[in-house]
């Protein structure tokens, strides 16, 4: 998995490329989020357009990321989640805990 950083206004976008699975991407995602919070960046948008696959460990990392950012007074939102990943979150009844968007400009504007 690869993570590319960019910013738009005061929102940090993480463009994820590859898969988020046990041993491949889960720890990397966690470390990226912790580094952003440590650096004072609290508006985080995870762009998952190029996430090809995610398992239950990846799902767990999304939940952990959401909780970690919120515990530090930040906002964590998802962008461009695929139909299959949405299904994974939906059937586990956790899709509703995330704010997710299909349009980047709308997502960025949603950060208050």
């Amino acid at each position, binding site marked *: 998995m690869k993570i590319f950083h960019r910013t738009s206004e005061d929102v940090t976008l993480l463009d994820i490329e590859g898969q988020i*699975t*046990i*041993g*491949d991407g889960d720890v990397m995602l966690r470390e990226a989020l912790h580094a952003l919070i440590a650096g004072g960046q609290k508006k985080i948008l995870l762009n998952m357009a190029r996430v090809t696959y995610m*398992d*239950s*460990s990846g*799902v*767990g*990392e999304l*939940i*952990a990321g959401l*909780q970690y950012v919120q515990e530090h007074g930040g906002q964590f939102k998802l962008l461009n989640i695929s139909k*299959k990943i949405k299904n*994974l979150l939906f*059937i*586990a*009844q*956790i899709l509703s*805990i995330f704010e997710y968007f299909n349009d980047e400009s709308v997502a960025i504007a949603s950060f208050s």
Partner: protein
Amino acid sequence: MPEIPTQLPREITLVEIRFNSSLAILDMIQPITNKVCDQLGFDEDSQYWIWLATQEALNNAIKHGNKFDPNKKVLFGLQVDGGEFRIIIQDEGEGFVVDEVPDPTRKENLLKTSGRGIFYMRSFMDRVEYNTDKGTKVTLVKRHQDES
């Protein structure tokens, strides 16, 4: 020269691999699993979910069963029996009581960051069987249409 059959037999163990407790093996097992799924007539979406269930079972065997112990092996098998495709994963761990695994969709468990592997296996397969007599043996079962 004998004719090479192009279709899968009705009842047979197609694949049996015993490997060390390393997640790196998954990259080798995935194309084998997908190839068999393809031959059995599963479409792309079905292959995706079958692999997800398989990967969850393999993750559990390596992580929770064998606890990444390189001296312990995981058995991986693919079987076709009539209209059923069976994926067998057996570890050398201490086993567990599957009924004691918390339901991740209960309100108090929704925000937990782990514990969804078995739930996903059950969601995407027709049947999931457990045998904990010797390690944990998980059998993932999916019915297929290609019974020729």
